[in-house]
């Protein structure tokens, strides 16, 4: 089943023509409207008319998360602020979030790509879609919500958390499709078992899971325990949110909605473009977005592209499941966490930051974050109470900066393993 068959099954020649026109229009617009892009292009000796084909996109400079921070909050918007109808944000590395703005038309595009995603997962007007992604500044909740409404499905906007209530509603309202992070889906499955509810007592048929990396093994577990089809979806707020790419019923790669988001794979070290089938960093360019177009945004996600015909009939290019990151970003319970954020918090304690280490585990299918902090002389006290207060203070600050709760454990000086004098910052024990 397709949501937009002409586009989703368009032949390559036609699709390239659509992409070329849209790319040229986007480059023209950002050059005119966004001083940041104009000066970057001028520095590279480029004029909008130099980008005549999709291949020529490789001549354009990359955009990074740092560029978004440098232009906080509205510096990369390409329309007058009055045209912006929605603002979302994701947690930032230094306390400042990454901000994105949407025009009315952008929200329409977002609903369209999410409608394609949900339809590919088997949703229709008859579906009851339970949105257990967080609503708010995070794009997950509202992204799925608008797509589901566009289809005409019945939306149950529960948002995240309160698992027993999620399950009660799922059972009583006859939810057919669940949208949440894959780890939360497993947690729900676990809670179902504890409550003595069998999958056959539910109407659940499918789930769209994303916002964090997950493996085939985890998919098998979710599918087995909930007795559903688990569909991987991909997106990031910088580009639009969920809806950038999603699997079809074949579950063999995620179709990128490339009539809106133009993908490339590059070598993360050299920046050179890699051919289909080679693993590298995914770079995305929005070719229809008005509010905040993104030119060659470095997602830091590692994957491969395949243009082989998919059995579902869609011609849209497929990306493999995300295989990792080209930076040190961690995704914990769907929230982006950079080790440097922890460093910033610890720096706030004194003149120098103590050595620290992040330990990520998965207990009962939920990610846990423990931050080990080496006790420095300045921090140490002979009173237990003071050290405990310090632990709580660090934990509370981390919680507000990271947007995810962390347990803080003080450890002895030099007890964190060093390699070449530098402490190993992250130990990820999650078996994905």
């Amino acid at each position, binding site marked *: 089943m397709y949501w937009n068959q002409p586009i989703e099954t368009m032949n390559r020649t036609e699709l390239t023509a659509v992409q070329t026109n849209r790319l040229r229009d986007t480059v023209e617009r950002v050059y005119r409207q966004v001083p940041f892009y104009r000066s970057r292009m001028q520095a590279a000796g480029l004029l909008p008319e130099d980008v005549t084909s999709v291949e020529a996109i490789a001549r354009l400079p990359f955009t990074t998360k740092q560029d978004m921070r440098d232009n906080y909050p509205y510096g990369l918007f390409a329309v007058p602020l009055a045209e912006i109808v929605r603002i979302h944000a994701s947690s930032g590395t230094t306390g400042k979030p990454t901000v994105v703005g949407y025009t009315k038309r952008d929200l329409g595009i977002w609903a369209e790509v999410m409608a394609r995603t949900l339809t590919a997962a088997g949703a229709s007007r008859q579906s009851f879609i339970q949105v257990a992604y967080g609503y708010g500044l995070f794009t997950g909740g509202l992204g799925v919500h608008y797509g589901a409404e566009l289809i005409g499905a019945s939306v149950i906007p529960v948002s995240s958390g309160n698992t027993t209530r999620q399950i009660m509603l799922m059972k009583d309202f006859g939810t057919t499709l669940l949208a949440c992070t894959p780890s939360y889906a497993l947690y729900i499955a676990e809670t179902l078992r504890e409550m003595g509810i069998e999958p056959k007592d539910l109407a659940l048929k499918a789930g769209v899971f994303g916002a964090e990396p997950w493996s085939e093994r985890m998919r098998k577990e979710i599918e087995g325990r909930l007795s559903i089809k688990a569909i991987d979806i991909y997106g990031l707020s910088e580009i639009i949110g969920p809806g950038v790419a999603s699997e079809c019923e074949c579950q063999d790669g995620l179709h990128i909605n490339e009539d809106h988001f133009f993908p490339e794979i590059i070598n993360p070290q050299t920046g050179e473009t890699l051919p289909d089938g080679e693993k590298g960093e995914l770079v995305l360019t929005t070719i229809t977005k008005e509010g905040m177009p993104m030119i060659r945004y470095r997602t830091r996600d590692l994957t491969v592209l395949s243009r082989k015909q998919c059995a579902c009939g869609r011609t849209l290019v497929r990306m493999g499941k995300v295989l990792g990151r080209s930076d040190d970003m961690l995704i914990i319970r769907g929230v982006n966490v950079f080790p440097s954020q922890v460093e910033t918090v610890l720096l706030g304690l004194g003149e120098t930051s103590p050595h620290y280490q992040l330990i990520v585990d998965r207990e009962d299918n939920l990610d846990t974050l423990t931050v080990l902090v080496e*006790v*420095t*002389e300045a*921090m*140490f*006290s*002979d*009173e*237990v109470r003071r*050290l*405990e207060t310090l*632990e709580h203070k660090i934990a509370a600050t981390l919680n507000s900066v990271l947007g995810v709760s962390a347990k803080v*454990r*003080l*450890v*002895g*000086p*030099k*007890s964190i393993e060093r390699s070449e004098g530098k402490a190993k910052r992250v130990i990820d024990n999650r078996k994905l």
Partner: protein
Amino acid sequence: MIIKQISVFIENRPGTLAEVLGIFSAHGINIRALSVADTADFGILRLVVNEPDKVERILKDASLAVKTTPVLAMKISDQPGGLLKEVQKLTDAGINIEYVYAFAAAAADEARVVLKVDDLAKAEKVVNGEKVADGGEGPNFYW
């Protein structure tokens, strides 16, 4: 008498106390008084030793988190009510005792305790009955 107490941060995992004690043993340091305050994750080892400055240096060289704190050491009579008598004086003077622990050994009918209080100078005066402490700091006190 006001003496220097050494506190050492120890992680709450098997072997950490032995590691610290090993350092003491290797340097021939005799522990005069000791207490351990602990939580689920870590503990604080508090010690009284003969040469606190030297011991502090040794422990720091061994990469331990160390802090010296002035505390009150006092003699009490080793019989029921002995400690209460002194503590009552401090309480009457409105001094808050944060923690207290005993020396490892003492002369026959005498005990010695270490107290961490919020107003050290005042506490010392109260205990000594407004007299200035005699002898000052020195190895004699610790035998």
